[in-house]
């Protein structure tokens, strides 16, 4: 597979890029995900909204098994991630090696950037391609520079993360995830820790990515991003998906009270 093909939309295949079914996640007695199922089509951008504590970040972290879950399965492009069903219908956890391999296909960007502080921007981006996928260094670096150009940070290749603004660090984190040529990108409240004037540059990079056909799940509080970029908006509350649909429909005429209340509170606060 070459570097560009993973970004291209393959509309001919009916198989969803991500298939989560019946995910149940408990922290002790507290059930934070209560049987969530979500399919994401190839090239689709799904924005997940909902009040804090609704389980949306946990759902995202279950996709690549940063968070373990007690029931349900996840598949990316038809390949299981984390658990497979054996002949008797029992869930079996995959070997660590297989889980690590599955994670390569799933890019994630965190709220707190999580760049490696002891590596330069370029080293951050090429570390996993070289050491995990065995890509030759010159090729990995070329790809890294292309990605840096894409997020508008070509001149920062040799800077250390501590020297960058939050918005710049977050764009590097996006480039780092893309360098593994993932089939799907997960964004976990990536603008929540940023100063307001830095939010725009990160959202612009994400919008570009969506336009290029990347399959994306975005957990965010940025309603304007949901309205402008999402193909589908998913509203979560209390560990379940309450409502989902096209953004224009959901924002204009929500079907449930909970969504209506959530949007009203949001609008009262931000006056949009």
């Amino acid at each position, binding site marked *: 597979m070459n570097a560009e093909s993973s970004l291209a939309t393959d509309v001919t295949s009916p198989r969803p890029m991500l298939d989560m079914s019946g995910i149940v996640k408990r922290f002790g007695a507290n059930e934070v995900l209560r049987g969530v199922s979500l399919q994401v089509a190839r090239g689709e951008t799904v924005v997940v909204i909902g009040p804090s504590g609704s389980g949306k970040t946990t759902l995202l972290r279950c996709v690549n098994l940063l968070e373990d879950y007690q029931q349900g399965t996840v598949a990316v492009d038809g390949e299981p991630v984390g658990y497979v069903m054996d002949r008797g219908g029992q869930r079996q956890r995959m070997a*660590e090696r297989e889980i690590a391999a599955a994670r390569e296909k799933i890019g994630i960007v965190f709220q707190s950037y*999580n*760049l*490696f*502080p*002891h*590596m330069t921007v370029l080293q951050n981006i090429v*570390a*996993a391609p070289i050491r*995990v996928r065995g890509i030759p260094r010159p090729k990995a670096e070329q790809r890294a520079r292309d990605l840096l150009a894409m997020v508008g940070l070509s001149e920062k290749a040799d800077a250390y993360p501590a020297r960058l603004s939050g918005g710049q660090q977050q764009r590097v984190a996006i480039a780092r995830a893309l360098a593994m040529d993932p089939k799907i990108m997960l964004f976990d409240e990536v603008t929540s820790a940023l100063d307001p004037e830095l939010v725009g540059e990160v959202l612009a990079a994400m919008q570009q990515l969506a336009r290029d056909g990347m399959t994306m799940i975005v957990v965010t509080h940025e309603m304007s991003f949901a309205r402008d970029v999402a193909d589908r908006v998913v509203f979560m509350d209390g560990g379940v998906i309450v409502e989902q649909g096209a953004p224009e429909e959901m924002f204009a005429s929500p079907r449930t009270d909970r969504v209506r209340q959530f949007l009203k509170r949001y609008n009262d606060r931000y006056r949009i």
Partner: protein
Amino acid sequence: MPIDVHFLARLFPALLEGAEVTVELAVLTMAICVVWGLVVALGQATRGPLGWAAGAYIQIVRNTPLLIQMYIVYFGLSLVGVPLSGFASGLLALCLQNGGYVAEIYRGGLQSVSARQYEAGRALGMRRWTLYRSVILPQVIARVIPPLANQGISITKDTSQVAAIAVMEIMKVAQVWVESSANTYDVFLAVGLIYLVLTSVISVGARVAERQLAFVS
């Protein structure tokens, strides 16, 4: 108090011979403890009897004096049929004690790396060994250098205690010279200076290493 130059001219070569033993002991102890401490720290990180034993070892050596440990090794082991020279006994006791401290330094370094760094590495598909080698350990090393240097200084000073089991390092040489002459001041001035030079070398070396490895401006 006038300084007797002729006396110093005779004293210094003798002290430097003692200093050689001091440096040998200190360097050997440091080299062994850098490895042994890591073994103990990794052992302590495991569950079960090994982790418990490593934890008990750390508490025991940290909460008993080096001098007593040295007496146990030097006088005690020879009695049960394992006679060790003064130098070997001193080295063993120094390594036993400081291995516990170095293990704690490594543990602190490992704990100071945020769980988010592990997460970021795992999300990129790194497996345990790659994650440790390219993400975690480089950060740990940068953070443990200052405390390791402090431990090195402390080890160098601790070597003076092997004088108590008749090893001819600086301290013992100094005692011999003080008892055989009346120039107490000169001897201790010289001994103090030599120790200051030795410990300063470690401080400066650590600062250079720290600057080489620094990544957070």
